[in-house]
């Protein structure tokens, strides 16, 4: 489904990604971990089109998307959940989903007001909100939701928009322990539905619960790519987080 071939990305003399390669097959869930500054979010920005790599290629469903703009990648089926909440806080919860459902509408159609279509989209949106138990807050402003609810809304919005590959950037950051379970359940639901998921997380114990594979980044390159058990027991991981092991 996703093939990243030796991509490099630099800003000035600062090399953020260096000949980074990995592959994801359809329906797989993989975690990405690494210390601060290892290039995790930059990798996501490169995959979703907010940065273009200076070298290397990115293929999604066998299509070269290296130079595609972000909205074209989204249309191809790449969904992104941002590290800093990407919900539209000034809109209602319902409007957030309606906007996602309308994302792929052509310009001409988007300039036409169709009450019938809007009604249908609202009904469809309600069904998504029911999945995350936010139907009763449909008319509330998204800013009134808690951090965890905003996360759920952002993920379900990406589901509504029809993504096949989910790039989740620290989906449980700043989320209360109770809401964390809701976020995890939603991610598990994505897995059950056969979606491909790539998650950035800091907590290896947390992602090994539902990831089949963990990719460890350090200084912009993949240093480990294995099962959660093997990665957790790896000396290399210990080294990058805590410095070199004692002689």
């Amino acid at each position, binding site marked *: 489904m996703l093939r990243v071939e030796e991509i490099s990305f630099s800003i000035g003399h600062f090399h953020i990604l260096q000949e980074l390669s990995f592959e994801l097959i359809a329906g797989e869930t993989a975690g990405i971990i690494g210390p601060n500054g290892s290039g995790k*979010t930059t990798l996501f*920005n490169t995959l*979703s*089109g*907010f940065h273009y790599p200076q070298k290397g290629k990115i293929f999604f469903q066998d299509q070269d998307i290296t130079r595609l*703009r*972000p*909205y074209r990648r*989204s*249309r191809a089926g790449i*969904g*992104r959940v*941002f*590290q*800093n*909440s*990407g*919900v*539209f*806080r*000034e*809109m209602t919860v319902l*409007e957030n989903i*309606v*906007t*996602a459902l*309308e*994302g*792929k*509408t052509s*310009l001409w*159609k*988007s*300039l*036409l*007001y169709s009450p019938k279509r*809007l009604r249908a989209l609202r009904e469809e949106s309600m069904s998504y909100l029911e999945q995350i138990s936010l139907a009763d807050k449909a008319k509330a402003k998204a800013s009134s939701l808690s951090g965890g609810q905003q996360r759920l809304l*952002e993920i379900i*919005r*990406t589901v509504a*928009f029809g993504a096949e590959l989910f790039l989740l950037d620290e989906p449980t950051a700043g989320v209360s322990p109770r809401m964390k379970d809701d976020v995890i359940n939603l991610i598990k639901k994505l897995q059950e539905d056969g979606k491909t998921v790539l998650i950035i997380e800091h907590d290896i114990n947390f992602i090994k619960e539902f990831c089949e594979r963990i990719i460890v980044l350090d200084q912009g390159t993949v240093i480990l790519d294995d099962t959660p058990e093997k990665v957790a027991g790896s000396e290399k991981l210990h080294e990058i987080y805590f410095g070199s092991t004692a002689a």
Partner: protein
Amino acid sequence: MEYVIHLCILISIYLILTQSFNISFGLGLLFNLAHVASYAIGAYATALFATELGANFFECVVVSMLLSGLFSLLIGGISLRLEQDYFAVGTLAFSALVSALLINWKSLTRGVLGIPGIPRPEFLSIDFYNNLNFLFLSGSLAIFVLIILYLLFQTPFARALKAQAESESATKALACNTALICNVSFFISSAFAGLAGSLYAYYINYIDPSSFSLTEMVFILTITVTGRPGSFIGCILATFFLVLLPEPLRFIDMSPGILGPMRQALYATILFVVVYINRRNIFPVKRSV
């Protein structure tokens, strides 16, 4: 009575002008300070086509809207690459450029002398030199434009425009071509400003660059901010309120030299107070990846 009709005509023109600004600025938070330049282009296009080429009302309106719209694509193509404050400065530069052209391209615009003798529209054998008849024309057009814009405010386009105002990256991640959406909002916004300019030129029969100065932009901005950016009804109410507000000043025994600056000071004060009260809501910080 003539005075009331005059005020109603002004309100109809300003309804078109401010509600069109409310699309790009109110919904999209695109701080386009060149909106007054689009208004000027519409007015000058009508003035020149009507006086020099003898074009009829419909031809002048279409040409004014198209030229203003095309001008906005030029601004959008360049300024939309800039972000927030820089974008506002970029559009202000365009506005200054148009203003300089209006003053200095004397062979076309007659500079500060302006263009006199713009004939009122002629069709259906109606005498539009009668201000009441002109009010029916401008009022009908204002209502027609407001209906179109009201429907536009309910469309997916408007929601995408609002979404990009909050988080451009999140909107892009939902498959929206934000650059296209912003440019189209500019085009629509400016085209209707061009229509307002055309009506203004027809009504006043004479235009010069002073009618399209930065002071006029401050007035448009005051109306939109007072009505709350993005609020359709708020913008309409604020137009009525602010166009009529300085009128009682006319009945005070005061020299015109003081009255004019007082009117401007009043608008500037209102703008400052409204911005101060809503300082956290009017310009929310844009989020990025």
